[in-house]
């Protein structure tokens, strides 16, 4: 059980770190959203799974509560993260920010 928790935490930490690197490396707002929110989501999913496994290993009323709350946090993360990313990107495009080095921009043609 402990090994599983460490593996999940490790994957979470690596992907959160990559998200931070992506934020610095990528050239414009859209690609940065790809890097940041997505690596962060995957990192957070595994961090939360680590909490759930810890709760399951602990057992009893507290442990079960921990598992349920962790899974609920996961559900809300999966609902709110894409909504927020989408809102940011759409607002950026409406404000006239051109995607960097884009090979095609159908949304601009559409307007």
């Amino acid at each position, binding site marked *: 059980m402990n090994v599983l928790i460490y593996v999940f935490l490790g994957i979470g930490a690596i*992907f959160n770190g*990559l998200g931070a*690197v*992506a934020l610095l*490396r*990528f*050239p414009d707002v*859209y*690609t940065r*959203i*790809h*890097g940041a929110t*997505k*690596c962060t*989501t*995957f990192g957070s999913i595994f961090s939360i799974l680590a909490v759930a496994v810890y709760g399951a290993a602990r057992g009893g*009323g*507290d442990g*079960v*509560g921990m598992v*349920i*709350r962790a899974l*609920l946090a996961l559900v809300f993360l*999966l*609902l709110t*993260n*894409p*909504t927020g*990313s*989408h809102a940011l*990107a*759409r607002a950026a*495009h409406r404000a006239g920010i051109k*995607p*960097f*080095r*884009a*090979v*095609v*921009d*159908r*949304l*601009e043609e*559409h307007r």
Partner: protein
Amino acid sequence: MRRVAEIAATFALAFLVYLLLTLPSGTFGLWSAEELLAGAVIALLAALASHRLLWEQGGWRLLNPWRWVVFLVYLVGPFFLAMAKANLDVAYRVITGRINPGIVRFNPGLKTDAGRTLLANSITLTPGTLTLEVDEETGDFYVHWINVRNVDPAPEEVCGPFPRWAKVVAE
């Protein structure tokens, strides 16, 4: 009558979530009396505020338990697999800086708000693709793609099996 049913259903869902969040809190059954009271008040406020939005355009369909089963299968199966693959792909692009971005358009042929929302959120959660806009009349999706392989892609090229699953789960 319809409105009362809408409020009641929203209240039940919100109250259920609150109960799950506060699960082992006390002596009154599994919950303490304070939590039950606070949960009921908060769930009622949430229901009054949001019931109009939730059940518009046939939201009742989503209460069908079979759809929930299919949704869970989708979540842990094809969706998680696609997300893991895409995460590794974007991790590679973060390290090497090899990107070929663009905004592409495709039409997955989804009719309902629920189906479009599910597909748009799935696309955005998958690294490398990001839904920018959905045309409400035609159902066209505008997606920012970090590695454009085809300027006029079919839905399957951008998001794999997601449209088919969205249709089964939500339409």
